[in-house]
């Protein structure tokens, strides 16, 4: 009798230990490795959407497929990271020349209430004819922002106005419309153009 109880208890303890340790392993993977690049391939980013491009025409997720694509979330009242990133982006396109001739970029406003298509047009076009501004219904924009796991938050200023905090990375999408990686803010030129060369090379 005694040995059987001891055996039973032992099995339960072993099972509990196994369960807890695998739970621990899962948690460890999630918290420690959650941002590891080996997992990024499994990330499903993006969503279908219907918004307005800077010419006032309807644009959908279909625009991101068929060509190697860069998307960047920002706003025109952004003094620093947005103009810098878009300027660098046009420099990457120029440097890649023929190799990156079908690369295209989209600048999606995180401030659609103030960034009208007209404002987006003049702004985006200053960075070349392969950069298209996207804005539109704030709820629809918010859905796209969430689907790309982009952080964007209105920060009120003292004068009753507001500014925006936002993710400053450039997202890379392959011709198949799938997420392929990011270029960080301020990433060096060689690294960025290397990624774009690979992106353009993937069929």
């Amino acid at each position, binding site marked *: 009798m005694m040995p059987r109880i001891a055996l039973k208890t032992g099995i339960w303890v072993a099972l509990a230990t196994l369960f807890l340790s695998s739970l621990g392993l899962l948690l460890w993977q999630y918290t420690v490795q959650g*941002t*590891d*690049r080996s*997992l*990024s391939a499994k*990330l499903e980013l993006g969503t279908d959407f219907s918004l307005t491009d800077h010419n006032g025409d309807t644009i959908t997720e279909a625009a991101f497929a068929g060509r190697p694509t860069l998307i960047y979330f920002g706003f*025109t*009242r*952004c*003094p*620093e*990271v947005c*103009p*810098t990133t*878009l*300027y660098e982006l046009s420099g990457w396109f120029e440097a890649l020349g023929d190799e990156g001739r079908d690369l295209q970029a989209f600048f999606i406003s995180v401030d659609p209430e103030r960034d009208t298509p*007209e*404002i*987006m*047009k*003049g*702004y985006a*076009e*200053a*960075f070349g004819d392969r950069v298209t501004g996207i804005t539109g219904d704030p709820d629809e924009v918010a859905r796209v922002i969430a689907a790309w*796991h*982009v*952080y964007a938050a209105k*920060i009120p*200023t*003292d*004068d009753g*106005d507001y*500014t*925006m*905090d*936002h*993710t*400053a*990375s450039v997202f890379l999408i392959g011709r198949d419309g799938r997420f392929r*990686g*990011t*270029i*960080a*803010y*301020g*990433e*060096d030129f060689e*690294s960025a153009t290397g990624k774009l060369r690979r992106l353009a090379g993937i069929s």
Partner: protein
Amino acid sequence: MKTITIAIAAALFGLSAQASIAHDYKLGALEIGHPYARATPPNAPVSGGYLTIRNTGDEADRLIGGEAGFADRVEIHEMSMENDVMKMRELSDGVEIPAGGEVVLKPGGYHIMFIGLDSRMAEGESRTATLTFEKAGSIEVDFSVENINKIKDRMKNDGHGDMDHGDMGHDSMKHGD
């Protein structure tokens, strides 16, 4: 004819040379070095202003704000990058310039925000703004408008940091959600 051309060329050269030369100001114990502002894309309602302030006195002062004819508002802001998220905060109390110390307003950190521009700021132009300090008072300075390449070169040469804020997780997905 030739002399006139040379004279014009010399004058133009002189002008452009002057525009690129660092310009400095003095207000009491404060020395203000080369104010410059970022050239803007069309329709951009904001620009950033940068400069160096040295305090040669033995009392701390603060840059608390300013005004400009070409912008609706002039504010002091601080930008920072946290996990690939750009954050910007207005500094209501301004920036302290410690006694005997130096503060550099530069891309990626403290900057002056010109909000509500009356026109596009093009490279090579100059815009006048008044800066206000808590103790030293106000001073009118010219901000030379520079493009991003020139600003980067300046930061490299000055040794005041660089623009490379993306030194982590280039390939990995990092997002602040």
